[in-house]
């Protein structure tokens, strides 16, 4: 426990970066993922193709490679730090999985809902936003919850590109103190501080929605 006291500011800094990267990636991947899910259920062949290619690319390449691509290649053109590169990669990678969850959610909604809304005069976008997506998210919440928890854990990818996150700071502390085991237990506990409330909140949401339905 003296390890934690001695290096508290280091761990706290790492925790802050992990939390920030997780929040940005969570919001970003939800927006992007929903967008690409909608693309895949439109009538346009081009939009469907684009959505499918996006999902297949980012879902089927290891996160580390996407991260290194941004850190080492894209950064030559657009200046970005390891933190930015890692967070962008995490956002894109997770958005591909979220797109699949949301798409499955949309497909589980009776097509009559969209037809009814269109016949009622709503535009495609209005019908999606007000009628289809709220019902799709209700179905998708358990799987979205899994994606979000994975996202927090996957944020440790930042350590590979000097992203100043928990894992990065943990590596430094472990290397300096040689107390590898205790260091990573502390790091693991910090991750729990984010993931446990998150997974509890998702369970709570699930129960809320079940009551409503």
């Amino acid at each position: 426990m003296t390890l934690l006291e001695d290096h508290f500011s280091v761990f706290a800094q790492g925790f802050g970066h992990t939390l920030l990267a997780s929040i940005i990636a969570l919001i970003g991947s939800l927006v992007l993922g929903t967008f690409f899910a909608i693309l895949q259920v439109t009538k346009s062949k081009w939009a469907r193709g684009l959505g499918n290619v996006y999902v297949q690319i980012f879902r089927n390449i290891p996160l580390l490679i996407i991260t290194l691509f941004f850190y080492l290649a894209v950064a030559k053109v657009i200046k970005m730090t390891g933190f930015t590169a890692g967070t962008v990669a995490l956002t894109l990678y997770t958005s591909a999985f979220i797109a699949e969850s949301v798409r499955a959610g949309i497909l589980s909604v009776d097509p009559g809902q969209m037809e009814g809304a269109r016949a009622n005069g709503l535009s495609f976008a209005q019908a999606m936003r007000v009628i289809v997506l709220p019902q799709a998210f209700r179905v998708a919440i358990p799987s979205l919850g899994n994606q979000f928890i994975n996202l927090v854990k996957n944020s440790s990818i930042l350590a590979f590109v000097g992203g100043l996150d928990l894992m990065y700071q943990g590596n430094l502390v472990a290397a300096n103190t040689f107390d590898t085991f205790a260091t990573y237990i502390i790091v693991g506990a910090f991750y729990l501080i984010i993931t446990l409330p998150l997974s509890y909140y998702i369970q709570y949401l699930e129960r809320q929605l079940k009551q409503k339905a």
Partner: protein
Amino acid sequence: MSMIEFKNVQKYYGDFHALHDVNLKIDQGETVVLIGPSGSGKSTLIRTVNGLEEIEDGQLLVDGFDLHDPKTDMNKIRKNVGMVFQHFNLYNNKTALENIMLAPRLVLGREEGENKRIAMELLEKVGLADKANNMPSALSGGQKQRIAIARSLAMKPKALLFDEPTSALDPEMIGDVLDVMRDIAKDSSMTLLVVTHEMGFAKAVADRVIFMADGRILEDNSTAAFFDNPTEPRAKKFLSQVERH
């Protein structure tokens, strides 16, 4: 002026010829019933009128808009042409009242107080004012369909399409729905196009009856003439089957 006009309309599903050279003119304020055996293309026809199905060839004019023209904004047509479905298609995530108020708010930008007043009036009219705050899952089929009709009416459309509105209902529910439809036909200048198997309803309210089979219009006649003396042998056969039933 005609509200709906089909000119040599063709519609295919792959190789299947769903609408075969359809010509049809329906005037403003007319009530037209469309009948025919299942698979005759009557549902397809009615769904082309508000663009839920696209046509492959010919011309389809609705409220002056050419539906086959890719530049036509479907949302403008749908604002003026409502539709009631066999399976109601109420918004499952909205209360009965919200189902009625949603489109006027989003599409017409109707002021909220006025929107609510009109919606409550319509609920009164379909006899479900006490169900305003119910979710669709807490309504019976007949109640859902009456809400769906009220939802269409809230847009104050020029034309209203009914696609087998009573086919999915238990027999004891059908009467209430038909009563509401009868009222609409009676006291409005709205154009109504109704696909149904309810011959009693057709006899009572329709100005014209159209008989379809195999994607073609076989007979287009005044209600009295059609029921008293159908010219088409297949229409005769169909009527005798339906009435025996």
